[in-house]
């Protein structure tokens, strides 16, 4: 490695809080030794903490500033930033909270982080023109079974174990609202025009969406619903879901295979 490369590695390792040979750096002329490097070290942590605060305002409200900084600094120590854009820094934050002691004992923390990250992803996902119900009229009867749906790039589906949605609403009115109660549910998030929307989905819709989002055909979705709801109810529900998804602006393409 070049002398320049070695110098850069030493500098960056220290900025990230690591040890190893220190870079040979000169401080501001009037400042105490170590001041200059210290500014970069602290700026790194503060910048990442600010990114986390911006991405997870609800979680900040739930745990308070002091605990948020603690869990933020733990994440920063475990996940040094690797991407050029701070926008993606917190992508593993929910998973970190789900796995890491002591926070894993409070499922609401990871749930809320997953909720807010999904909202963030819906916020600036790619744009796409949505289809309306009229598009269904063009599908030939024999193509229905293999019909695949292309969803809006902003659509996210997550599972949570606690009532984070209820807590968000309650805490906005009352900062002292009790923490989210247990309430396992699937939620979807998407963007319509520039608004971010979310909706709780029941077990059947969650299963149907999971299949459809993984690229399975409409026939497979109908079979899944038949197993869950019975042969009699499944066709109506499948048609109903398709209509709901189209009306909501979730579908951007129909592919006959």
């Amino acid at each position, binding site marked *: *490695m*070049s*002398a*320049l*490369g070695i*110098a*850069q*590695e030493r*500098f*960056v*390792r220290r*900025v*990230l809080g690591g040890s190893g040979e220190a870079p*040979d*750096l*000169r*401080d*501001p*002329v*009037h*400042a*105490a030794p170590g*001041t*200059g*490097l210290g*500014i*970069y070290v602290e*700026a*790194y942590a503060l*910048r*990442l903490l600010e990114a986390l605060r911006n991405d997870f305002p609800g979680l900040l409200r739930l745990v308070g500033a002091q605990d948020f900084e603690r869990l933020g600094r733990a994440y920063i120590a475990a996940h*040094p*930033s*690797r*991407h*050029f*854009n*701070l*926008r993606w820094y917190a992508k593993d934050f929910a998973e970190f909270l789900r796995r890491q002691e002591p926070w894993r004992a409070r499922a609401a923390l990871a749930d809320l982080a997953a909720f807010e990250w999904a909202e963030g992803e*819906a*916020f*600036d*996902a*790619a*744009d796409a023109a949505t289809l309306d119900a009229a598009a269904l009229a063009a599908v030939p009867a024999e193509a229905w079974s293999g019909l695949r749906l292309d969803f809006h*790039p*902003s659509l996210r589906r997550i599972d949570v174990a606690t009532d984070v949605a209820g807590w968000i609403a309650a805490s906005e009115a009352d900062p002292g609202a009790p923490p989210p109660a247990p309430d396992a549910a699937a939620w979807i998030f998407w*963007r319509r025009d*520039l608004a971010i929307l979310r909706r709780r989905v029941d077990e059947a819709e969650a299963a149907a969406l999971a299949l459809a989002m993984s690229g399975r055909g409409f026939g497979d979705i109908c079979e899944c619903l038949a197993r869950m709801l019975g042969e009699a109810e499944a066709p109506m529900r499948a048609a109903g879901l398709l209509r709901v998804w189209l009306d909501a602006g979730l579908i951007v393409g129909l592919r006959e295979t």
Partner: protein
Amino acid sequence: MSFRHGLPHLGFGLGLRPQHYAAVLDGAPPRVDWFEAISENYMVPGGRPLAMLARVRERWPVALHGVGLSIGSTEPLNDEYLDALETLIRRIEPSWISDHLCFTGAGGHNTHDLLPLPYTEEALDHVVSRIVRVQERLGRRLLIENPSSYVSWPESTLGEAAFLAALAERADCLLLLDVNNVYVSAFNHGFDADAYIAALPAGRIAQIHLAGHRDLGTHIIDTHDRAVIDPVFALYGRTVERIGPVSTMIERDDDIPPLGELVAELDRVRAVGGAVKTVKGRAA
């Protein structure tokens, strides 16, 4: 127009910040001639950020200002970054694009900070070659900004201004002169701010930044969280007197006030930067 290498004098601008979208777009147009957008904030797939930037671009010239190119890094140029920047350039058709003389990471890690380089011949060769490659890829000249810094490298054999001057000539790039950064670094490292600016190739300075900072007595931190101070205004005035009118804007990244407050501050910039000595004045 050979001065500024063909780039226009856009006048007096502001950094585009999400807090101001409504004030910029929904009311009477503010007294702002152009906007500078942080490239990385818009290097996203879609949604509101790009929609807002596109609406601003319909009505104002926009320059793209990057913080993540890491032109001084010894790691390979980041193709993902350059792809995203190219996509953004195609969408926005900016007046120009700029980034900093710095590196932002090493060993696969990113500090999201503008780390200063040692100003050596080795570093100069390295940065020149990378600027040339990026300019070839993007099909346009880059504007390279002088960073503010809190450390310097004892092995430096060139001053920062001499390094930038050589860089600009050899890479045939342009310069974004951050007058506040010059003030901050001049205090921190004990050099003369006016001599620094005088050492830069005037004709290659295509844009000027102004910003506020935090003076901690023994050193100054470039915080962009307050108004531009009088000594920086004075340095800006002497700079414009020396090099002529240059597109100028205010950066504000923290404790962001209402748009009107920044527009009022920009009026002061306009008064200083727009004043040109008359022939009589020069003769005197």
